[in-house]
């Protein structure tokens, strides 16, 4: 990562950020689906991480103003959003035994770059660059289409996690009401690669006739292109001996493995593209429709999925009561704001161009100086590079609120 100006996320900086820039009203609209406060907001859990890593759970608020007041008072390093409960989270202790339960919650997904360590060569661990962000962008494209086409959800908000990953929040009414079992089923449907970064394994997703499920077949068509551009050309994953050995491990045909290993060991500089072409010609050497050719083709499809299919953190999605960092929080290490991301333009998104809290405060200062004003502004953020991102959230919330209005009107008519 390019060394930018020093990151300062001190309490003073954070407090100014919350007071002058954080879009509480937009967050309220997005969570609440209506203008007047509903249970979606008032019964919602917020959890604060305070300076010194003190964790404060089961906070709840009646209005956006109340939330802002408390945030400015506690000045957390970040805060998280949880489910809507059957009682106000504050009243957890006084609720009848067994009656305090999560009832609604956005369906959320978390994709983290560290899960891609086995398949990226440019960075590892916490690092991320424009090049490996392409893995995340491939995941976003596949998930965005799958969720909409297969599950029919419309209200998807993608949010950069501030460092090396991305979150998805789905706010459709039906998605909000999913039980844990249903969430688990949906996640299983979506999962192809499972396990820890060290030992990720591709599940056997093939149906009993050895073909891919239709949903994955569709994804594969798109991912094949990503695979050759990203995995072969850019990341050159199979160039090193370790790289091509792990490729060979995924080929079930021992004769092919033997032949390829000989060729590749003799010519260590062979590029990934050349190696993949070698594998292709091995497959083509078998007669069309032969078992060997079918098996080899299936293995190649599996390899493409293994390297490019979204790697989802299943635990985050499966439980209604999982807490997830709120959009527009500041990542304490990078100082970057967790901004919404347009999935249609995900390929243009550059995590290093995301505004940092320090940059935003500087922008505020220069605006104030040029206009000769002192003091706070109600819409300070409008004068900073945060504006397009807040506009994005506002537009998203507006669509959601329109939907709720439409649904309500529809119900009234049916009565």
């Amino acid at each position, binding site marked *: 990562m390019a060394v930018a100006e020093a990151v300062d996320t001190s309490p003073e900086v954070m407090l100014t950020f919350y007071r002058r820039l954080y879009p509480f009203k937009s967050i309220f609209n997005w969570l609440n689906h209506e203008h007047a406060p509903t249970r979606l907001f008032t019964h919602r859990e917020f959890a604060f991480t305070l300076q010194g890593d003190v964790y404060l759970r089961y906070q709840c608020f009646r209005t956006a103003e109340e939330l802002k007041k408390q945030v400015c008072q506690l000045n957390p390093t970040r805060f998280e959003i949880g489910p809507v409960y059957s009682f106000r989270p504050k009243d957890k202790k006084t609720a009848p035994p067994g009656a305090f339960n999560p009832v609604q919650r956005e369906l959320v997904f978390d994709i983290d770059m560290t899960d891609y360590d086995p398949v990226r060569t440019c960075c590892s661990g916490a690092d991320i660059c424009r090049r490996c962000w392409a893995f995340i962008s491939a995941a976003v494209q596949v998930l965005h289409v799958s969720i909409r*086409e297969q599950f*029919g959800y419309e209200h998807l908000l993608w949010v950069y996690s501030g460092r090396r990953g991305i979150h998805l929040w789905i706010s459709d009414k*039906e998605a909000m009401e*999913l039980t844990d079992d249903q969430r688990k089923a949906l996640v299983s449907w979506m999962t192809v690669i499972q396990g820890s970064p060290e030992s990720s394994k591709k599940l056997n997703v093939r*149906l009993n006739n050895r*073909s891919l*499920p*239709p949903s994955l077949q569709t994804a594969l068509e798109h991912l094949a292109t990503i695979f050759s551009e990203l995995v072969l050309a850019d990341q050159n994953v199979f160039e090193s001996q370790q790289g091509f050995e792990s490729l060979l491990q995924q080929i079930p045909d021992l004769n092919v493995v033997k032949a390829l290993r000989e060729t590749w060991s003799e010519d260590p500089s062979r590029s990934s593209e050349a190696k993949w072409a070698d594998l292709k010609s091995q497959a083509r050497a078998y007669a069309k429709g032969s078992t060997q050719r079918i098996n080899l083709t299936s293995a190649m499809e599996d390899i493409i999925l293994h390297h490019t299919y979204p790697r989802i953190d299943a635990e985050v999605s499966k439980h209604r009561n999982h807490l997830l960092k709120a959009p527009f929080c500041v990542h304490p290490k990078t100082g970057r704001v967790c901004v919404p991301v347009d999935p249609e333009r995900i390929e243009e998104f550059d995590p290093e161009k995301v505004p940092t809290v320090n940059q935003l405060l500087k922008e505020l200062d220069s605006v104030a100086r040029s206009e000769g004003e002192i003091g706070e502004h109600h819409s300070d953020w409008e004068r900073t590079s945060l504006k397009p991102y807040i506009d994005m959230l506002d537009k998203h919330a507006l669509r959601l609120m329109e939907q709720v209005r439409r649904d309500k009107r529809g119900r009234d008519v049916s009565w």
Partner: protein
Amino acid sequence: MFKSNERKPFIDDKDLVQVTNHGALRYPHRLNFYDRPPLYDVTLEEFETCALDRLRILAEIESSAARNRSWEELKTVTNAQCLKYLPLHATSAKTVDRDAERRKDHLGHFVLRLAFCRSEDLRRRFVKAETTLFKIRYDGDDHVEREMFLSSRDFDWIPVDTAEKAEHRKELLASYQGSKIETVREQTFEAEKYYKVKWTRVPDLVEKRKVFLKRGWAYVPGKEQSSIVFAEFEANLTKALEATARALPRLDEDTRIVPILDNLSQGFLAGVPSEWIGSAEHATGDEIKAEMVDELAKKHFPLCMWTLHNSLRRDHHLKHFGRLNYGLFLKVLGLSIDEAIAFWRKSFDRMTDDKFNKEHKYNIRHSFGLEGKRANYAAKSCMQLLTSGPSEAGCPYRHYSPENLQTALLSAYSSRGLTSADLPEIMATVKAAHYHVACTRVFEMTHSTFGLKKGEGVGGGESVTHPNQYAAKSMEFYKAQQDNAEAMVVE
């Protein structure tokens, strides 16, 4: 639910004559979704027996999960139990009073709803056990009759017409699970009917990618239809129980029903029916003499009664609850009043005749129904022992500390083949609070010499529900072996 506004739902009405239908059945289907509550009068006795008989089956289904039975084993055990307590014949079984069977099934289900709607945990467990029972019956139902049942009810599934099936042919065929032989798979696919439901109604099919999904709709092939049916049964019952829970306070005015309901739900919590009815059918027929008890205790008693016998021998005395529980147990085991008096007189050998006659003889006669209210008291069931206080000579699996329990198990059963290697399994079950399962497992272990295997319980997969059942079953095994040995000598 029980439309009790106009009239009491369950009234003792001996004059009520059941109309016998000669043609159409009042209950046309063997399977029941229990959409409608029973709106007829029943006697209090029928109310209770229907529920108890059903409870036995549900308790057995529940303990099957703890005992890790396979689906096939579970089906076999449950069907055997159903045949005994809650038979439900096909419509084609013309010689059977099918309406009576189905009425009992209907009524029992609704009585138990009342008993089990009262806490989240009870509701969850009841729904699980009932859904399993429904699945077992659905599985065993005649195909034609099942079709008739399914078409009798609106499952809110949208049939996919030929045009729509053709439109998604590629995807539907790809996700269609069938024969490994491609041409056969394709043939059965062509004949398959498809239904459309919201995907949330078939999460299990989605999880296994067994359906095609499009914009929130799951395309379910006919052969996976049962998934929709089961999910619907479960969802329906869950909702109904919550509604019943909210409506229940109105029922509390009927003071005759409330104690029955309490008793039923307690029994389910303990994993057993509230009474072990059937000591008579299990009696071995031979009279038991006072001097035989030592030997019997060693060979046939469950741990609770063994420990009572053991402390009686050690202390030459037993405290109140111990005397009561053990005395009733011995009575049901087959000790006559005279033998019982002899037994206790000998056991309290440090007591004067005068004290014995004054303080204990009366109580023994009383427990046989020969004094006082002249009630013939039943021996305590596992449920009663499980729910009694720790100082009341209850169930050792529940009340003993792990160390004491292990010591007691070894001293009671090492002569019957139990070793310390068996203890971890038993203790794990105890830790999971499945006390009757632990006791059942001990029975299996200590009767393995009779060929009893894991999972067979006290025989036929039945779990321990009563100390007398435990002892009687054990004595049956012993007697059967003796008879065999005798037959071999004689022939």
